[in-house]
Structure formats: C-alpha cells, structure tokens
C-alpha cells in the first residue's frame, strides 16, 4: 500500500535529483522554472518529435523523481523482449515522474560482456531508489530489479511487467521500500504453495 507523502526520505530524493543536474544552474532563475529548464536540458532527442515530448514530460512531471529506472536489453528474439517493446509506451506514461534510462543495444551488450552471468536474463529493468541511495549509498539496499528475460512465455512476461509497474506506482511514497519488497516476496512464495495445494496455478509467473 502506498504510504503518506510525509516520508522523511522524500526531500533527500529531491536533493539527489537536483544534484545530478546542478552543473547547468543559472543565477536569478526562479526555482520552479529552473527545474523545468534543467529537465528539458537533459532530455535527449532520439525521436522525430523530441521537443514536443520533452515539453510534455516536464509539464506532466512536476514531482521530483524518486527512482532512476534503467532498461538493459540486448535484443534477444524472446517473448520478454517483445512484451517490453510493445508495452514500453504504457510503462513510460504510467511512470512519467521518474526518468527512464534505456541502454541501447550497444551499451547493453557491453554491460553484459562485463556481467556474463546475466546473459539471457535481459531485458532487465533496474530501479534505483534515490532516497535509499542518499541514505546509505549503494552499500546496502538501494533499489530492485526485474529480470524479464527469465520468463519464457509472453503471458508470464506481460504479467510480471504489469505487477512490476503496479508495485512501482503503489510504493512510490514508501518510507521502507526494502521491507515492502521482502514482505511481498515472502507472501508470494507462500501464496504460490497454497495455490499448488488448491490445484490452481493461474498466478504462477515463474514457470
């Protein structure tokens, strides 16, 4: 369940987001306008409607980001890859407050060349919790990830992606995201076993 907006970590996340773009700050610009200008400045323009998209993104996303979302996808001809391609626009719309960084094919291949044990796990969606990273850096809990490529069927991948996006939305204001995730993992494992006993496999996403 989403918690209240009175999280003690939120201001830190905002600070972290600002720190990232502080190099392009200009004097005498009001804070709100400055944030909009800075956000526009860091948006790349790979599409044919870059200015429109960048403008829309900033108008629709006045809230400071809580997460950095990274997508690593080398492009295997897999159901998971197709599901991500087909549903990326929806993912982006639902999660518009937080920037999504897509490692292109080249960067993704380079990434997996350095982390061979993860080959075949992609598409991977890694979510960095800026609030946690401002508290303890990356030495402790600092986010979560979905290895979509481990799911073998279109249906499994789609269900996992939907659950993942729902989780992101519902826990955006969470003050203890790690506890929420671990509780969810325990519950899912237990629920799965109960369903086996009840001869009902519909919720299974792991194959």
């Amino acid at each position, binding site marked *: 369940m989403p918690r209240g907006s009175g999280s003690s970590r939120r201001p830190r996340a905002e600070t972290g987001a600002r720190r990232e773009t502080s190099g392009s700050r200009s004097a005498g610009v009001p804070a709100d306008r400055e944030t909009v200008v800075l956000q526009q400045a860091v*948006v790349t323009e790979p599409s044919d409607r870059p200015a429109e998209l960048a403008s829309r993104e900033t108008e629709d996303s006045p809230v400071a980001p809580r997460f950095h979302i990274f997508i690593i996808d080398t492009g295997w001809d897999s159901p998971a890859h197709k599901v991500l391609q087909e549903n990326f626009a929806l993912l982006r719309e639902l999660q518009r407050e937080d920037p*999504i960084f897509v490692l292109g094919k080249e960067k993704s291949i380079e990434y997996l060349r350095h982390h061979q044990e993860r080959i075949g796990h992609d598409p991977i969606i890694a979510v960095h919790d800026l609030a946690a990273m401002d508290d303890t850096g990356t030495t402790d809990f600092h986010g979560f990830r979905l290895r979509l490529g481990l799911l073998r069927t279109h249906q499994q991948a789609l269900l996992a992606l939907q659950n993942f996006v729902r989780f992101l939305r519902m826990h955006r204001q969470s003050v203890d995201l790690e506890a929420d995730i671990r509780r969810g993992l325990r519950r899912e*494992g237990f629920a799965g076993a109960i369903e086996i006993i009840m001869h009902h496999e519909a919720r299974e996403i*792991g194959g």
Partner: protein
Amino acid sequence: MPERWSDYLAIFMSALAVGYMIYEIDRRQRKLREVFDVLDAEDSDITASLEDLVARGELRPYAGATLG
C-alpha cells in the same frame, strides 16, 4: 505411540505433506527472487557504474515514445 501400521502411515504421509509444502514455498521464493529482487551490496558496482553514466551525461532520460 501409534498401535497400528496405518497410524504410522498417516503420520508419515502428513510429514511428507508438510515437507513438500515447506519445499514448495522455498522453491517459489527462490524462483521469484531470480526474477524480482532487491539491489543490495552485491549489485553495488553495477549500480554505481550506471549512475556514473548518468552523472557523466552519457546516459540521458529516454524521450522516445517507443523502444527500438
């Protein structure tokens, strides 16, 4: 103590069922963690390198409407 062999069988079957339940919960949790889990100290280097790409401006928020 049970007096009939059928009682022993019932106890054995019950223990088997409980054992299977525990095994299945554990298997499900492990499988789920392979797919979805937290990022912690083990992932520290990877996280740092991705954030470094962002800080250096080599990776920017994706503005395209679709992937590909």
